[in-house]
């Protein structure tokens, strides 16, 4: 059944969208990521204009993070003060990111920028995750206990404006979380993702936050940043397609529930390796598109030159 999207101005099959949402939901339920990094390239692939795909992707991330945050709040696994600091950074970054996005759109380089961001960040994080997961798996096989992480005193601890983050058990400066927030906000706006896959490693490795509060806090921050991003895109570019978002969300929430049940049957380390491989495959595919000679060297966009 075809459905005409009012903002994207294309007609697409409704079941394709529900299926796309479902697959991404399944993966997000399985791996605990927002799934934004998958939905946006998939939307490009089925012919949704990039600007609409990015803005609507952000809207979809809002829906998936709401249900995640609700669950995490019940478990008291959200460090709200830390979340707020990250949020302030995130909103600054997001505003900047939308400005960059519009600038790149005018220059005709937005596709390149988005693709490069995906290749670099997905590739890097995928490799790191794979390495980490494989190492843990090997250790478990050998039967040695997981090595306790030493608290490292680096330049991070010498910065001013220190603040006590109770839930995380940290006494650190607000500057590093603010910077992490800004970086994620910029990427969220450009790539149309929540940024969870960047935020989570940054919180663990840069801020030394305990793993139990990382997911909840990251989701808390992502919820507000992607809500802000959606609103900004809606106001400045009018590119949020609510019809498209609704179909993706419906497919997504169903998929997420199925995914989380499937996930319960697999081991955490196996899951991480699978996720790492998935991330690497997406990055490699996008990377190849940049390197290989395109099918048609020419492309057209409606609208004048900036």
């Amino acid at each position, binding site marked *: 059944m075809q459905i005409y999207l009012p903002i994207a101005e294309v007609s697409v099959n409704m079941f394709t969208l529900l299926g796309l949402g479902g697959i991404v939901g399944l993966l997000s339920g399985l791996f605990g990521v927002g799934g934004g990094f998958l939905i946006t390239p998939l939307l490009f692939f089925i012919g949704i204009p990039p600007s609409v795909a990015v803005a609507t992707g952000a809207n979809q991330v809002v829906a998936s993070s709401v249900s995640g945050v609700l669950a995490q709040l019940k478990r008291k696994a959200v460090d709200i003060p830390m979340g707020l600091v990250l949020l302030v950074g995130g909103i600054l970054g997001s505003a900047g990111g939308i400005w960059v996005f519009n600038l790149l759109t005018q220059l005709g380089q937005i596709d390149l920028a988005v693709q490069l961001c995906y290749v670099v960040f997905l590739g890097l994080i995928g490799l790191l995750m794979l390495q980490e997961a494989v190492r843990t798996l090997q250790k478990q096989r050998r039967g040695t206990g997981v090595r306790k992480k030493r608290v490292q005193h680096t330049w991070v601890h010498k910065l001013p404006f220190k603040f006590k983050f109770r839930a995380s058990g940290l006494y650190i400066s607000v500057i590093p979380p603010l910077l992490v927030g800004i970086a994620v906000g910029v990427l969220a706006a450009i790539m149309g993702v929540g940024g969870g896959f960047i935020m989570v490693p940054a919180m663990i490795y840069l801020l030394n936050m305990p793993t139990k509060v990382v997911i909840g806090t990251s989701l808390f921050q992502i919820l507000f940043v992607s809500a802000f991003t959606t609103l900004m895109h809606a106001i400045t570019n009018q590119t949020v397609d609510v019809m498209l978002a609704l179909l993706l969300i419906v497919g997504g929430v169903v998929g997420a529930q199925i995914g989380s049940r499937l996930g319960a049957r697999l081991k955490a380390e196996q899951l991480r390796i699978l996720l790492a491989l998935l991330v690497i495959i997406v990055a490699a595919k996008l990377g190849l598109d940049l390197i290989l000679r395109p099918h048609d060297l020419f492309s057209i966009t*409606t609208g004048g030159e900036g």
Partner: protein
Amino acid sequence: MIRATLLSLALALTSLPAMAQEATTPDATATKAPPEQIVAGLSRDNIGITTSFDGSQILIYGAVKREAPEPTDEKLAVIVTLEGPLGPVTIRKKSREFGIWVNTASVGVAAAPSYYAVATSGPIEEILDPRVDTQQRISIPLAMRAFSGPIEVEDSKPFTEALLRIRERQGLYEMETGGVHIVDNTLFRADFELPANLTEGDYKTRIFLLRDGKLVDQYQSAIEVRKIGLERWLYTLAHQKAALYGLLSLALAVFAGWAAAAIFRFVR
């Protein structure tokens, strides 16, 4: 079913001169009346883009009205064009920089139709005088209007060719040789299949009546393509009350997220 009715209507047109007069173009009759005139109609004069819009069919039909006997020595031909709203288009070309493919050159076209279809009763180069073509902008390459801004590339031809090629591939530009059927040198009809990815606006319909490549008469009409119902409402809201629309999208997402969590908790 609808098609069959329309065809019979088209056929009935010849025996109904009263109806024919109604549909005659005013601009054609204003000056000296040509020996042969087009009398035409459209199967519909508006298309509503609804949520389930999946392309549309348009039948353009008509007849040749004559005051005098038909000149038999010159060959009759009919060309029908359907043209979507004009809009600016930027054509970009990729080239290899630092090992990756990057958009490096671009050409802007100030006005190119979002949709353009030409149906002819025979091969266009045989039935249409190139001068008439240039004057009336009939064939597809002529549908594009002026370039916007100074041209920064040495040769703009590959760019405009790319525009035509890409739009043809998308089914937006179409040339249908033999798409106009003429019966007894009097009745004609042309069917158009409009694609699902239509943009809004007035779609201009032109009919050219030709004798040996020379223009005898032409007829113009328009089909209004509009989003209607929910599509119209959402589009207007997104553009006129952007903040409200943004908040609405967010509310929907938050509600869906909350509802999904609640429903599945209940199911368990």
